[in-house]
């Protein structure tokens, strides 16, 4: 069995150097995306894009103590333990690998956008050129070769770490303890269980909401309804209707003679 891995983003350490963003593009040969114009902000893109699989969000906030904070959050696929994208993919084009990486299989993907709709973190984007869904693949190809994912390897502030899952969990716990000691009573590990836990874990100095994270994020039940109820029922209904109609026709053909009443009751013959 392959080892389950995880990546950690330590928000308190990130310097927003954005090397991770370039590393991702470099490794995956992704082109630049200038779709977000400069309007006086540092953040480069409004959201992830089909060719921007990881984005450092940069926001300013002043905390209760009146202290100014500039927060940097690396967004990318969370590599959920119970990935909505994979669950809801009608083509089974998304695999959850043993390493924890949730990977889109380009060959199978038909670009329907269900993963886009289902992902609780607004991650996948359909690339209009290739008409395939795209997102961070945790550099699964590198992991398989025993190489750290591109972004984590290049991190200039050691804010990103990549290691076996338990190790990362342990590091995260330690860091939170440190942050608490440094005067961040709300420090926490962000690893939402609603999506089956994630393989992209965050260490947050303050409450998740401050950084735009929802602690309640979960794999939508609608997928289960769709998969377990609607679709089987639908298939049943569709097939039922067809079979029913055929059956009826058969019965009718056997029992009833052709109805002729209309003709017979028709207005006079000439």
């Amino acid at each position, binding site marked *: 069995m392959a080892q389950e891995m995880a990546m950690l983003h330590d928000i308190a350490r990130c310097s927003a150097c954005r090397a991770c963003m370039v590393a991702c593009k470099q490794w995956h040969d992704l082109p630049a995306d200038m779709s977000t114009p400069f309007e006086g902000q540092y953040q480069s893109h409004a*959201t992830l894009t089909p060719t921007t699989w990881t984005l450092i969000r940069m926001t300013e906030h002043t905390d209760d103590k009146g202290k100014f904070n500039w927060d940097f959050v690396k967004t990318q696929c969370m590599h959920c333990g119970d990935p*909505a994208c994979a669950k*809801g993919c*009608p*083509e089974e084009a998304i695999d959850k690998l043993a390493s924890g990486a949730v990977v889109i299989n380009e060959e199978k993907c*038909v*670009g*329907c*956008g*269900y993963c*886009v*709709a*289902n*992902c*609780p973190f*607004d991650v996948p984007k359909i690339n209009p050129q290739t*008409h395939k869904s795209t997102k961070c693949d945790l550099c699964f190809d590198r992991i398989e070769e025993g190489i750290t994912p591109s972004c984590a390897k290049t991190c200039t502030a050691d804010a990103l770490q990549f290691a076996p899952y338990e190790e990362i969990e342990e590091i995260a716990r330690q860091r939170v303890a440190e942050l608490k000691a440094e005067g961040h009573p709300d420090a926490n590990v962000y690893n939402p269980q609603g999506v089956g836990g994630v393989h992209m874990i965050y260490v947050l100095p303050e409450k998740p909401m401050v950084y735009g994270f929802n602690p309640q994020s979960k794999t*939508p039940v*609608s*997928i289960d*309804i*769709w998969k377990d*109820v*609607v*679709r089987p*029922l*639908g*298939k049943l*209904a*569709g097939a*039922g*209707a*067809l079979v*029913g*109609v055929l059956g*009826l*026709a058969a*019965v*009718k053909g056997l*029992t*009833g*003679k*052709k*109805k002729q*009443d*209309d*003709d*017979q*009751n*028709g*207005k*006079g*013959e*000439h």
Partner: protein
Amino acid sequence: MSKSITYIKRHKKGFIYFHWINAVTFFLLFLTAMPLYTNKFLFLYEAFGAETLQTMHHILGVIFILNPIVALLITARSGIFTLIREVLRFDKDDVKFLVKFPAELIGREPKGMPKQGFYNGGERMNILLQALLWLGFVVSGLTLWLGAGHISPTIRTWMIPLHSLCADLGFAAAIGHIYLAIGVNPDSFQGMRDGTVKESYAKHHHAKWVDSLEKEGKLETVERIVK
């Protein structure tokens, strides 16, 4: 030998177009989306390309949305009003009809059928269902298509099952409807071709309607020589 049969004017041209546009787009929408629904239809994507079919699905979706609106506003005002009026008029007789109707399905002639209006109870049910499904399709389809970034993800995730559900019900209903139209009451089919139905058929199936037409003196008939 030829005989002359009396036909009654039932549907106007505009309404017929509306119906068929609706029917065709419905099926094409269904077909273009089938590969997503079941892998048995993946060959369609392979043959035409996933993107093409999805784009077609969207274009057809636009037609599917606009068709009734155009019909309501311009091309088939009376026909649509009739649909609406008929649905709103659902009454006791319709209930009775629905109870007795199943026998017709296998070609029997149920006894004591109450007189029916322009649309019978079953049709009225069908209209209502189709109208609701239309709404369901429109809302869920548009949200799926254009909702990203505008509509909350939680809502969006629900649109998939909703859309699927609509398709399921719509498909099942359509099958039944077509069977009835072609298999059970081929005479009604005529009405969707040239707008007229045999008087005999009309009197038998929509007596209330024929009665009221006669009372109002609005009965338009056409004589046709049939070989």
